[in-house]
């Protein structure tokens, strides 16, 4: 190893809460050589962003680095630097790329001015020289048409482009250390893949040391060389990336790896492994191991004595007394199901049609501008959903995937009745249902329910859990208050919450617990169809799997159907029986979940699948990157809507004619001009099926 760029020992960071200083990150250490990339993995509250800020000495006034630690950057002691010295280091030598690029850019300044300003402040270069450097760096980060980008305001760029501009701003001073704090969370997988490729390429060229912070194990596997796993402010495990994924030595790393559904894993095969409980609050840390309460390997010693970060050789370390007992045999999906019941395989043939969606449309009118008035024009509407046909079967899950802006959420809101459709029919159990919730009969209302994306806003903060659950029982099932009381307890048990949770208020629940209450509320009316719009995307990995298991089990018990929307293909694949791929308001592929991730697939599906960062460092798939951005739903491309971005476009026919539906087999259809045999031949099989194991 070359001389370290960053050498951190014994770093403890505290935050002031009330009158006390509480250590949020304890005993952190890190060595990073130039040109290397280290991953920092942890859930929310694990202290990963605190580490990033502390390494830059950029903590707010309520945070401080405790004395006794060491923080050396390129041989200099950062802890003894004055503010002025730090400022010059920030200006050019250490850079941070934040999560929300949109907020990091000044909305009232053109991109070019913002980027050259950085250069002016750091090196005093200006004028044509700065301009030249900026265009060069824009070129390096794959921004098409650098001059045009420089002349735009931040809001005129897509999220992926904004992120690239922010990365360019960080790289323009040629920093020695770059810290990326969740730079791709919030972006689509397709955009994420492009950004990850970019970071990987840039690191190879420059001698920059990179710290990559994320909660996504797939991203780490694809990008990093070494990984630090953080939990409740302490390093749990440190290892080279291949070794961590092959043989985790800490129960927490093991739990994290196991709780992520692999692509192709299905609820029919197994339940997901999950880590029970919630992370500890900062103020109530015990003297034992911070993970003891949630650990499957816990022994009495763990609760009274804090395990040291033990060096295991090969540059590995783990903070566990029983690390030797954790081995590869624990990896992989839980056998059978973690809740002690076997999921039954359903037979497609004998399930009834629950809901039929025919030619469903939603066009949002666009307000006329003054010019439109003068010319007597009506602007084209935004065609968010444009002719969707779908069949949902009783007791089955239909997964809906697509990039943001593809119309998934609008489609779900049309079905639930929160938005009025422009055209098309909805049939529930053979009867036509009305447009909006206000016109629907209580009977229809009780059959359709919804679980929302953000558990934070799904529960009224001023109503207790009991009140939230009692209302649908009284309102939709016509129960008496006394009967509802007993049923509330029943519902809570069914979502694995203790009965005394009934008297809690939303602010006394964790994110995962809130989502359980929301699920209980949706099930209260005993519905036939529940729409789940990204129900786990706001939750931490370790909590996600428990909620997915719960959804699978409840479906088993109630026989409810789900319309499951998610941007995470592995999650959708796990829970779905049938998957529909949506792009610009239309479906492009529909098929059984087990078939959809195998060729032949629609080029768009292919791009989505290849963009997923797989949590396996050995998996280096050929990526099919989608560069351009999603076209506007107001000015839709002619012919096949995907032709502007399609890597497999065959010619003029794609631009002129709408593609036909081609049936691969019963229930699996692809909408593409390319004949199926050719598609199959083009899409040589990825080594995905073996990996499912």
């Amino acid at each position, binding site marked *: 190893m070359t001389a370290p760029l960053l050498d951190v020992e014994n770093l403890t960071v505290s935050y002031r809460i009330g009158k006390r200083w509480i250590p949020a990150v304890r005993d952190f250490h890190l060595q990073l050589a130039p040109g290397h990339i280290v991953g920092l993995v942890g859930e929310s509250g694990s202290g990963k962003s605190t580490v990033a800020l502390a390494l830059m000495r950029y903590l707010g006034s309520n945070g401080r680095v405790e004395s006794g630690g060491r923080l050396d950057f390129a041989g200099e002691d950062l802890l003894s630097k004055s503010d002025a010295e730090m400022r010059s280091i920030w200006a050019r030598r250490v850079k941070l790329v934040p999560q929300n690029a949109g907020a990091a850019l000044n909305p009232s300044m053109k991109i070019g001015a913002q980027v050259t300003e950085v250069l002016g402040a750091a090196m005093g270069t200006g004028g044509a020289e700065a301009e030249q450097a900026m265009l060069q760096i824009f070129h390096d980060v794959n921004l098409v048409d650098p001059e045009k980008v420089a002349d735009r305001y931040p809001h005129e760029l897509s999220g992926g482009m904004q992120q690239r501009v922010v990365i360019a701003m960080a790289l323009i001073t040629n920093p020695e250390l770059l810290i990326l704090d969740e730079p791709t969370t919030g972006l689509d997988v397709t955009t994420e893949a492009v950004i990850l490729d970019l970071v990987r390429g840039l690191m190879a060229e420059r001698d920059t040391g990179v710290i990559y912070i994320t909660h996504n194990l797939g991203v780490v596997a694809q990008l990093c060389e070494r990984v630090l796993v953080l939990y409740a402010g302490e390093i749990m495990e440190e290892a080279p990336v291949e070794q961590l994924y092959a043989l985790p030595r800490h129960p927490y790393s093991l739990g994290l790896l196991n709780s992520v559904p692999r692509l192709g894993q299905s609820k029919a095969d197994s339940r997901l492994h999950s880590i029970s409980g919630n992370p500890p609050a900062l103020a109530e840390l015990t003297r034992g191991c911070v993970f003891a309460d949630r650990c499957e390997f816990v022994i009495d010693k763990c609760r009274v004595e804090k395990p040291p970060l033990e060096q295991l050789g090969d540059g590995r370390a783990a903070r566990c007394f029983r690390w030797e007992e954790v081995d590869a045999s624990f990896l992989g999906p839980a056998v059978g199901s973690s809740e002690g019941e076997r999921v039954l395989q359903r037979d497609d043939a004998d399930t009834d049609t629950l809901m039929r969606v025919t030619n469903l449309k939603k066009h949002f009118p666009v307000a006329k501008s003054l010019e439109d008035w003068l010319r007597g024009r009506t602007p084209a509407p935004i065609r968010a959903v444009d002719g969707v046909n779908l069949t949902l079967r009783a007791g089955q899950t239909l997964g809906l995937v697509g990039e943001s802006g593809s119309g998934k959420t609008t489609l779900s809101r049309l079905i639930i009745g929160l938005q009025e459709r422009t055209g098309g029919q909805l049939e529930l159990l053979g009867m036509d249902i009305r447009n909006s*919730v206000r016109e629907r009969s209580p009977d229809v209302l009780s059959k359709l*329910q919804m679980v929302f994306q953000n558990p934070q806003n799904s529960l009224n903060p001023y109503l207790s859990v009991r009140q939230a659950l009692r209302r649908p029982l009284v309102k939709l099932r016509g129960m008496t208050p006394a009967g509802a009381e007993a049923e509330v307890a029943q519902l809570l048990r069914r979502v694995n919450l203790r009965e005394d949770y009934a008297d809690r208020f939303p602010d006394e629940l964790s994110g995962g617990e809130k989502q359980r209450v929301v699920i209980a509320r949706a099930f209260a009316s005993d519905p036939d169809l529940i729409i789940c719009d990204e129900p786990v995307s706001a939750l931490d990995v370790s909590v996600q799997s428990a909620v997915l298991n719960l959804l699978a089990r409840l479906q088993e018990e109630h026989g409810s159907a789900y319309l499951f929307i998610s941007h995470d293909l592995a999650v959708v694949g796990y829970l779905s029986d049938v998957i529909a791929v949506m792009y610009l308001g239309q479906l492009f592929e529909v098929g059984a979940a087990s078939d959809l991730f195998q060729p032949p697939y629609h080029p768009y599906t292919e791009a989505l699948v290849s963009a997923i960062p797989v949590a396996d460092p050995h998996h280096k798939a050929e990526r099919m990157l989608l560069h351009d951005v999603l076209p506007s739903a107001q000015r839709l491309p002619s012919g096949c809507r995907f032709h502007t971005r399609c890597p497999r476009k065959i010619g003029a026919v794609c631009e002129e004619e709408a593609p036909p539906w081609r049936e691969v087999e019963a229930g699996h259809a692809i909408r593409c001009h390319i004949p199926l045999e050719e598609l199959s031949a083009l899409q040589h099989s990825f080594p995905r099926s073996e990996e499912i194991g």
Partner: protein
Amino acid sequence: MNSSLFSRQVAALRRFAGVLLRHPQSALGTALVFFFLFLAIFGSGLAPYPNPNDQRHDVRLSPTLDIGALQLGAHPFGTDRLGRDVYSRVILGAGSIFRIAGLGTVISVLVGSAVGLYMGYRGGWFDELLGRVIDALLAIPALLLALVLVGIIRNLDFEIGSWQAELADNVVLLVIAVLYVPVVARVARSSALDIKTREFVEAAEIRGEPTYYIIFREILPSVIPALVVEASLRFSYAIFLVASLGFLGFGARPPSPDWGLMVNENRGGFYQLTPWALDFPALAIALLVIAVNLMSDGIRRAVQKGN
């Protein structure tokens, strides 16, 4: 309501009071407001001359502090030109100002928030139409509108003892309500617009809840903090308005012990004779307005911290 909700409300109230009283200015303001409130409620028991219109011709124009006679206690604020005890009149005046400004505020907050929440939640043409009416009302200077309204209602001829006459007597109260309903409605509307996009409101819609349930049970609780702040602000403006109308002669009618009216009656030439008859009621108005403003500043701070 279950006990845990009650205990939560008590805890929230305690936190609120804690933040409010920690700041010296808002603590002082709150203390003064409560002092005036105390006068307003128990004034008739505290005033040395419970009838404010007692005229004692022997002590006309007696000064605040007659060094020679040194009758402190008999007329601490002196007497006016008709021999009325200014001290008693100031104390008794607190009652009317609190009653009119307070009740006016309560009415405008109740009506305004109901209207505003409905507008915000319902949206559409209803919101559009009422929004224009509100904009129009807000465009007219408040005092001018108040004078016009008082003028019209006062000049109507009502049968003595009828409810219309009763109403005319409380015309200032009505004016406060008319002036402030649109202001409160705007605040309630914008808060409702924010809350109605939250998923718990959509969950209620999916259950088929009626509009009134969604507005009062789902949206209102989250809007209350903003309404409390607005109410305290409205109250301070209402006090100012009551005093102004009194001074202009459009509020309380003589000989009632209204502070604004007292300032008006004792200005001009009379000020040379009995400056104290003007100074003390003016001081009372100033103190109360400042106190309510300090308190509402504190309330705003406490509500923001509480969230």
